[in-house]
């Protein structure tokens, strides 16, 4: 009957209740949807970062990250592979690469690029390139003179499939090595900078060109399950000679994305508080009006023997039901919006340059995390009840004889 009474009291002023209900609904909807979009941006950034030649972890020769020169190559990749086979969980995939800075040129243009020497079959299981070729074809182990270029680089160089491209880089002897390749395929990447920066040749071709013998620059690993696996990293570190190798997680390899993740929760909290402050004023105002309209009634309740705590509970129950109704509708609308956006996403192509600068995908898909949903609903319910406590306390403190005489 308490709930019945509270529910009926809420609807004594339909218009006022509807207004505050709409405010709660919009608040919850925007909290969850915006949280999901921000989370989606983070997920997209990390996914991009990991698939763009990073992987979940990488193994380098000691000192390579601070000075990625060719002298800091891993001379014996097979030793590393033996450790990987022994230590990594089943389902883990890895590939080895040669990665050096180079100059690409044709008859019209030249540009600084990163030459990546890959094992075509294993690379396709680890990074984006395996599925990114949209024109021509992907590399095979036999393509000793073949090269893959990004769409943006191809356009910049005004070239096409079948044409030649010359790469120049420093070899292990400290001399400039150059080699001509023929364009076999053109790839598209999430970001234009990736298309301009990276060109792909076979690992063997790059090793021959750079006189690297069997040497490689890095091993990139994709782990099964979640991207974070500190156990695998510590086991690898323990198994590899520490004076020769370094193991880095994607969090260390992608510092910008890691920093964004770290401040994301803060952003979401700030957004929640901004929405709640606006909503909170509405809740306090509405509840205060509802309390002051019913001063005589609260006087009666006290005269009938209700204790202040019961009146406090009665007013808080009304707020609880109002908030709960708003939360149910708000959550439904938020999930509906997220469901619809998960199909089409939000296309940021028009803002591609700015989005790329931040490492964001061109299309944002919302991502839901249970903690964001609990946080949004928890903030609204707890703070909503907290701000309702003020009018509820006022109602509980009315002196019955004065309240009954109130006109």
């Amino acid at each position, binding site marked *: 009957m308490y709930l019945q009474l509270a529910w009926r009291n809420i609807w004594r002023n339909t218009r006022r209740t509807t207004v505050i209900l709409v405010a709660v609904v919009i608040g919850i909807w925007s909290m969850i949807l915006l949280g999901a979009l921000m989370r989606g941006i983070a997920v997209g950034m990390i996914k991009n970062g990991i698939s763009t030649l990073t992987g979940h972890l990488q193994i380098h020769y000691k000192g390579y990250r601070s000075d990625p020169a060719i002298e800091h190559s891993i001379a014996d990749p097979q030793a590393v592979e033996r450790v990987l086979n022994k230590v990594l969980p089943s389902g883990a995939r890895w590939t080895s690469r040669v990665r050096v800075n180079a100059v690409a040129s044709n008859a019209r243009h030249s540009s600084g690029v990163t030459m990546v020497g890959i094992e075509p079959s294993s690379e396709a299981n680890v990074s984006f390139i395996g599925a990114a070729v949209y024109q021509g074809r992907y590399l095979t182990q036999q393509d000793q003179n073949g090269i893959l270029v990004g769409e943006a680089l191809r356009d910049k160089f005004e070239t096409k499939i079948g044409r030649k491209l010359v790469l120049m880089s420093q070899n292990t002897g400290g001399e400039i090595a150059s080699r001509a390749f023929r364009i076999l395929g053109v790839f598209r990447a999430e970001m234009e900078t990736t298309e301009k920066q990276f060109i792909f040749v076979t690992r063997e071709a790059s090793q021959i060109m750079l006189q690297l013998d069997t040497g490689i620059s890095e091993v990139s690993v994709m782990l099964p399950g979640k991207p974070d696996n500190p156990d695998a990293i510590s086991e690898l570190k323990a198994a590899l000679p520490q004076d020769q190798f370094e193991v880095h997680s994607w969090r260390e390899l992608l510092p910008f994305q890691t920093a964004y993740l770290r401040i994301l929760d803060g952003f979401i909290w700030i957004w929640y508080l901004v929405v709640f402050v606006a909503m909170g004023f509405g809740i306090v105002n509405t509840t205060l009006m509802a309390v002051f309209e019913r001063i005589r009634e609260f006087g009666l309740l006290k005269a*009938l023997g209700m204790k202040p705590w019961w009146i406090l509970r009665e007013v808080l129950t009304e707020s609880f039901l109002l908030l709960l109704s708003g939360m149910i509708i708000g959550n439904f609308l938020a999930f509906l919006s997220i469901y619809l956006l998960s199909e089409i996403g939000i296309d940021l192509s028009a803002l591609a340059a700015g989005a790329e600068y931040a490492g964001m995908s061109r299309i944002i898909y919302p991502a839901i995390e249970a903690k964001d949903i609990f946080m949004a609903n928890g903030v609204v319910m707890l703070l909503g009840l907290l701000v309702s406590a003020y009018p509820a306390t006022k109602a509980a403190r009315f002196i019955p004889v004065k309240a009954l005489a109130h006109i």
Partner: protein
Amino acid sequence: MKMVECIEVNKTYQQGQVNVRALKDVSLAIATGEFVAIAGPSGSGKTTLLNLIGGLDSVDSGTIVVDGHRFDQMSQSQLADLRLNRVGFVFQAYNLIPVLSAAENVEFVMLLQGLPAKERRQRAKAILDDVGLEGKYERRPAELSGGQQQRVAVARAIVSNPSIVLADEPTANLDSKTGKGLLQIMKKMNEEKKITFIFSTHDKMVMNYARRLILIRDGCLADDQVKSN
């Protein structure tokens, strides 16, 4: 046995800059089962005295004892318990909860007392039948006439078998026929259930119904008449 005892009760109100002495050294005793009217002109202190007896307000000086409980020795919470379990109120303006039906209004006091729903509903219907509101259980106050609303208020006041019912000008908003019907109901409850009734009134008809008439004038007890049957 004394149901109510007031000993040298004083009460002063502040109205703006002026102090108004509502009650001056009022002493009286009312026995269990009495049917008493407190009469006097407007502003004489009738409602103040009823509020003090009901524990809705506190005295400036003096002592009030109701059903053996001394108010000056009780906390607000204990007073609330006393009002809930021993005192019934009937107000001039009915003061029903507008969002509850007649039966729910009557049930509300029993809900506060913690009675089970089934028992509440049975007792509420029975008492509404007693006050002549058969079949009107689900009507909201707005759907009832003034007389019917006041009968619901009486039903609410007596449903939990209080020791005493305090009625502040219960017939003031009713026509004489409806008021008379209401008084008959209250007198019946007084006789059958032995509940002590105290009214404040300036209505001659109500005064005639009372077996004891206490007159108050300017905050002082002016007369105290017990009628012989």
